[in-house]
């Protein structure tokens, strides 16, 4: 069997204990919470139940059983794709999440697209023109970008493009016009971050001997930069990029909230506000899967892109 396939299988098998441990903590979250799930459920449904109804509901929900029995039952259901129902809406957690994930993926995609299209060229430009005006300008803007809270950038963009210019919608998750402001808000921070990162990596590579070697052999500097230095410098950016994708796929909670973007982040915020534990549990499991899978993809990418790791492995 191919080494890489073995590696992937190994990593996927490693997922099982990770998810089991995580599921235990996720379930314990509900169990240890001082709130009574039955009372929460009735409160969220707007009901004021009498004690007999509460006791009956506790029995039906199995809340009188020992912790491990409750966990085992929950895990068995979760393994069969049943994460329960939202206390607030009564809709299944899966259905709720599947309704939200597409919107989050759209926002993630648009943000990544903007980030890649702008951060990489600007980072290269900043490195190539190190300590020149363009470099200073880009460093100042990126410093400004990483320092500004995203929600503030969001409100500024709303004010400019929504209220003043009336060019773009400020809320909702409809057509592509609705995507522009939230993705710009998220991308502004990410671009600022990655311009600095790409610049740093580029400069590190440009200080290595192979640049001089290439120049000595008469290769054009542009060719060395784009064909040797850039790909090598992007290797170190990949891990960071993976984490950023994970963060975006988990939903940009604040941005989704202020732009009324019906993604998974807003779903989580709404659920946390009312302690809708089944939804919170589903969200945490989603986040865990996302990070584990993204880490796996990043590691695989490293194996493809860096022969040293492949040979060691």
């Amino acid at each position, binding site marked *: 069997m191919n080494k890489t396939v073995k590696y992937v299988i190994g990593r996927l098998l490693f997922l099982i204990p990770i998810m089991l441990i995580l599921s235990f903590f996720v379930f314990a979250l509900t169990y240890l919470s*001082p*709130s009574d799930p039955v*009372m*929460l459920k009735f*409160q969220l*449904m*707007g*009901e*004021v139940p009498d004690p007999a109804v509460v006791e009956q509901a506790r029995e039906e929900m199995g809340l009188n059983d020992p912790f491990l029995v409750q966990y085992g039952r929950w895990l068995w259901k979760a393994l069969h794709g049943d994460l329960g129902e*939202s206390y*607030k*809406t*009564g*809709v299944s957690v899966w259905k709720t999440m599947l*309704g939200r*994930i*597409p*919107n*989050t*993926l*759209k926002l*993630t*995609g*648009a943000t*990544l*697209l903007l980030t*890649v299209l702008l951060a990489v060229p600007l980072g290269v430009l900043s490195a190539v023109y190190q300590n020149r005006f363009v470099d200073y300008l880009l460093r100042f803007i990126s410093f400004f970008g990483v320092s500004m809270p995203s929600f503030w950038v969001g*409100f500024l963009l*709303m*004010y400019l493009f*929504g*209220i003043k210019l*009336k060019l773009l*919608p*400020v*809320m*909702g*998750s*409809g*057509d592509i*016009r*609705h995507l522009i402001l939230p993705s710009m808000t998220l991308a502004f921070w990410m671009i600022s971050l990655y311009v600095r990162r790409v610049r740093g990596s580029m400069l590190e590579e440009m200080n290595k001997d192979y640049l001089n070697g290439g120049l000595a052999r008469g290769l054009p500097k542009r060719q060395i930069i784009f*064909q*040797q230095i*850039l*790909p*090598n410098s*992007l290797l170190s950016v990949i891990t960071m990029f993976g984490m950023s*994708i994970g963060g975006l796929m988990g939903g940009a909670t604040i941005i989704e*909230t*202020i*732009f*009324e973007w*019906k993604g998974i982040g807003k779903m989580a915020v*709404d659920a946390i506000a009312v*302690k809708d534990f089944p939804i919170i549990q589903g969200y945490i499991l989603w986040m865990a899967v996302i990070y584990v899978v993204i880490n796996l*993809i990043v590691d695989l*990418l490293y194996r*493809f*892109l860096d022969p040293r790791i492949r040979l060691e492995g």
Partner: protein
Amino acid sequence: MARKHLKILALVLAAMMLLSACGGSSGAETPAPADSGAKPAESSQSTQASQPAAPAAPAASGPKHLNAAIYWTAATIDPAVDYDGWTSCRAGITETLVWVNENLELKPLLADSWEQPDPSTWVMHIRDGVTFHNGNAVDAAACKASLERTMEINSRAVTTAKIESIEADGQNLTIHTSEPFGAFLFCLSEPLYSIIDVNDPADPATNPVGTGPFKCLSFKAEELIELEAYKDYWNGASPIDTVSLYVISDDSTRAVALQAGQIDMGQRIGAADIETLKNDSDYAVYEASGTRLQVLALNHTNQFLSDVNVRKALACCINYDAMVAITGGLYAVAGAPYPASAPYGYDQLDRQHYDLEAAKKCLADAGFADSDGNGYLEKNGKELAFTLGYADKSLATALEAVQSMAKAVGIKLTLQPVDTEPDLNEDNFEIFAKNWQSLSTGDPQWMLDNMYKTGGVSNAAQYSNATVDALCDELTGAFEFADRQRITIAAEEQILTDCVHVYLFSKNNFVMANNKVSGVTVFPIDYYFLTNTIDING
């Protein structure tokens, strides 16, 4: 090698974009609201209260579309489920047999008259000529079927109006209550009792077939309700042709959406935006004193709070006007068990008010003194100190002010924020900041029975007064409004004499709109929003 790396990178990124795009395509689309375009022609910054259900204005030449926003929907808009009928009512899809107007007066709606042959029987005449959105006529049998379905689904429907049985005969609907119940008609105004055509094949969860001025075209929970004016509406069709009713939960975003022209009107405003919109001539802010009260619930089983002097000192040390100023215009001064908007003697009552000297005298009369000179009073070696719990974090600043005001008379309050509001009982609180719907369904009885009557289910304070108990019983059997008003005011007087709780402020209800919108009414009870009088020009 480097070129190969680049290709791989490009492929990975492209795959991510593709994944994202595919994901996006499967999501339900929310149509983009039409941009409102031109600015309103003139300023109208008023608290207009037009006559709802008045004949609509003649239609303009082109189709008219309104973009509006509410702040909440549940998973369905089936009026029989939980409180979901509040949304169908706000959207103008469903109507009840009777309703409560902007002056909190009970008015006929689908039932145009009623009589009471005996104390437990109501014969209501269903208005002639009313049709459901599918064209079917509304008769007593349709109303009976709708109400019975609601009672089958929602236990609250049985207990709230105490309905025992229903009979239908032509346009006459006879309802028997389990006991003589004076609040019965008011209870029927709750959106829970909305009348829908239960025989229509449409799923009431997403398309309740009601009788209101707008019929539902589509519903997406927590996102959007698309509506179309019902041209055969019995009380005059809306001059608007279609409505997109967005759900925008964040107050700031709703206000920005109005300013950006994405919506034309919206329900509820955040404190930060009230002044901004009031000072901008392009927008109008419609305001009504609401029926929700912010109360400091006092536990009468507490060793100090059992003393009426201590309770009065707490009520007198609070500067109510200053408190309202702190909340940024979201509230109005209360000082009584029912708000100023309610027709229950607000102006004639000796309401709780700021009187520092009276507060100090009450505490002195109760035997408290600052024996150790630390600024807080003591009695029998015990400090006059309470824990003030609260769940609504937006009240933190106001409650810090209360803490400071209490300190001025020697009462020590320790603020205790909690995640979720507990089900209060005599053992789990001393003072708790509670939000009460004082006039659920527009009638005072529910609150009197539950909060003040001895043994009331929500009487966590353990308040008990024979006069109030007798008045509650008398109210149950009182059917004339004047009688109900008199009894309620008498109960309020006793409650204020006993200073049962501290009534801080009542929450104002707001509707904001741009100047193209007219015919807006804002109601003290916020389950009405879209009406047939609303029009949009330009």
